[in-house]
Structures are given as structure tokens and as C-alpha cells.
């Protein structure tokens, strides 16, 4: 499988098991002393973890976006090349047809500048 056909890398979602065990352990240890400040600390850790996880997923997304953007750019470049080549080929065909018609007219003796051919 060439590099162009390879699918983009899959996403890995961060695991929450370790954080859960740590938070539950701390909660059990301070079972009587739970108050608003402790819960705020918990909330702070949770928020930090969530931000880190989102940033990780965003990083993977950014990498995949770069890859697929390069792929799309290559494909569109080739498309543009083919379009200009088509235009050029049509011009060539028109000119060649004109030349062939002129030669045919010379063969049939309808051309005024027949005698310039040697």
C-alpha cells in the first residue's frame, strides 16, 4: 500500500482509569474532611485532565488535517495540470486540422499558393 492510499491515523482517546483511582483513593482517605475547597481541588484536577485530553485529541486532528490537506492539494494540482494539458491538446488538434486541410486542398488543386510547395 503506497503512502497516498494509506488511511489517516486513528484517534486514541485518553484513559480515565488512573485519574479515577487516584481521586477515589483521596476521597476515601479524607472521608470526613470533605468540604467545598476539597471539591474545588477535585474539580480543578478534573478540568486540567479534560483540557489535556482535548488538547491531545486536537493535536491528532491537526496532524491528520495536515496529511489530508497535502493529499487534497496534490490531487488538485494534478487536476489543474490535466486541465491545462487538455486546453493545449485542443489547440494542437485545431492547428493540425488546419494544416491537414491545407494539404488536402493542395492535393485537390484548390490552393492559390500551390506552386510554393517543393
Amino acid at each position: 500500500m503506497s503512502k497516498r492510499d494509506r488511511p489517516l491515523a486513528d484517534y486514541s482517546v485518553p484513559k480515565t482509569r488512573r485519574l479515577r483511582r487516584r481521586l477515589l483513593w483521596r476521597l476515601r482517605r479524607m472521608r470526613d474532611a470533605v468540604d467545598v475547597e476539597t471539591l474545588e481541588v477535585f474539580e480543578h484536577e478534573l478540568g486540567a485532565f479534560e483540557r489535556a485530553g482535548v488538547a491531545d485529541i486536537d493535536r491528532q486532528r491537526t496532524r491528520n488535517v495536515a496529511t489530508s490537506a497535502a493529499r487534497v492539494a496534490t490531487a488538485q494540482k494534478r487536476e489543474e495540470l490535466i486541465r491545462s494539458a487538455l486546453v493545449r491538446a485542443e489547440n494542437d488538434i485545431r492547428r493540425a486540422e488546419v494544416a491537414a486541410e491545407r494539404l488536402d486542398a493542395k492535393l485537390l488543386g484548390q490552393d492559390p499558393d500551390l506552386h510554393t510547395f517543393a
Partner: protein
Amino acid sequence: MARDIVLKPPRIRSGVGHISPFAHVLVYVLLLGMITVDYVLLSQALTLLLRNDSQYGSIGLQMYVITLGISLAVVSLPHVVAIIMRRIQAGVMSRRWSIVAVALALIWAALLAAITIARIKAGIDAQSAGGLTGLTGATAAPTTATFSWSAPDTIMAFLMLGVLATSGAISFIAAWLTTRPLLTAAEKAHSHVERLRVHHDRLLGEAVAAREETIQAMRLDHEDAVRYTGARITFASRVDLLRAQLATRLAQRERDPESTSQIIRELKARHVAEPSEISPAIPPVQLTDRAADPLSS
């Protein structure tokens, strides 16, 4: 692997019915080279032929002009004959011009014959005269020499004839090969158009393939965006699950669920007070609705 006709297009010559300028120049270089060879040969022969006069320097310029003219004629007459024959063949000139062509060919043959005979005659004269009479004084008795096939001058004359005829034939062949008949040119023009059309059709096929490839790449990009959204949703649900478990454990631990819910309520109030919590980078609407979650603290 097939040749990529977009990056390396096939070389299809334009300009049907004309030879390239490079080939044109090469033809004239060939003609000039043969004229030079003929000039060298003829200058030797004419010097031998006119040795008694040329040693006094009386006909120097005349001899140069004659030599150059004969060598030009030897090379250019077959060229002209070939061109006239081609034009008659293509119908450009009428058939009566073939008389001129035959006459020119006869002149060319007569010229070669005259030069050969003169060369042989010069050899015989030199042999009978016995050397340079003007320098040594005419003391030697004039012996009568006759024609013989094996005399060195005769052999040299025929060798020279061969070289001259070869140069004329080469110029004839060059003219014959570089002037194609009109019918061939028309056929080549038609085949050229045909090849260009085939190239055009293959380019159309390539355009379809490139279009498909672009669509494929864009679809891959879209699928990646979908998977990204899924990953975000999965992660948010995991964190929400963690929060829910923490809240459940907290409610189980506390004897008084009222106070726990009081704490939770207070946290929520603070939470609403400062809304700059986590601003998701990419679409916040598609992810889980954080405000509707009752256990968000």
C-alpha cells in the same frame, strides 16, 4: 508502470510537411563538403591537363573559376533534377518539365564524360611529351603513347569519375529524401491529427481519474473529521462518567445527602459565576451539553 502522460507528455511533432531547420542545414553542409571534394579533385586534374599553360601562370584565375563551376555543376545538377522530379510527381509542375530534367541529367553525364576523357588525354599527352617540356627544354624525343586501360592516369581518371558520380548521386538522394511527395505529407498530417486526438482522449481519462482522486481525498478528510468528533464525544462522556462516579461516591460517603447536595449546589453556583471553564477548541455545540448536566461539578 505506464508512462504518466500528464507529467511526461508524448513528443508529437508539429509542423507536418516540412523538414526541420537542423536537417536543412545538414543537407547544405553535406552539399558543401562534396563540392569541396570535387574542387580538390578537379583542380588536380585541370592542373595536369593544362600543365604547359599553368606553369607560366597565364590562366590561373580562369582555371579556378572553371574548377569551381564544374564542381558546382557536378553536385547541384542532380539536386535540381531530383527536385524537378519530385515536383512533377506531386503535380506541382507539369509533365513537360521532365524534358528539362532529362536534359540536365544528360548535361551532367556529358560533363563527367568530358572530364574523364580530358584526364585520360592529359595523361597520354604527358606521357608522350615526357615531362615538363617548358622547364627542361624539349630535348626528349616525342614518343607516341597510345591509350591503355592499365595506365596510371587512366585508372586515376576512372577513380575520379567514381568520386564525382558518387557525390552527384549523394546530392540526388539527399534531395529525393528531403522532399516528400505531397500525398505523403497529407497522410502524415492526418495521422498526426489522429495521434493528437488519441492523446486528448487519454487526457480526458486522466482527468476523470484525477477528479475521483480529489473526491476520495476530500471524503477521507470528512471521515477524519467525523472520527474526531466521535473521539471528542467519547472523551467528554468518559470525563462525565468520572464526575458522576465521584459524585455518587461522595453521596454514599456522606451521611447527610442534604449537605452533599448543598455542597454540590454551591459548587454549581460558583461554576456558573465563572463561565470561562473549558473552551473546547472545535465545535462546542456538537459535544455533550455541559450546562444540562446536573452532575457537572
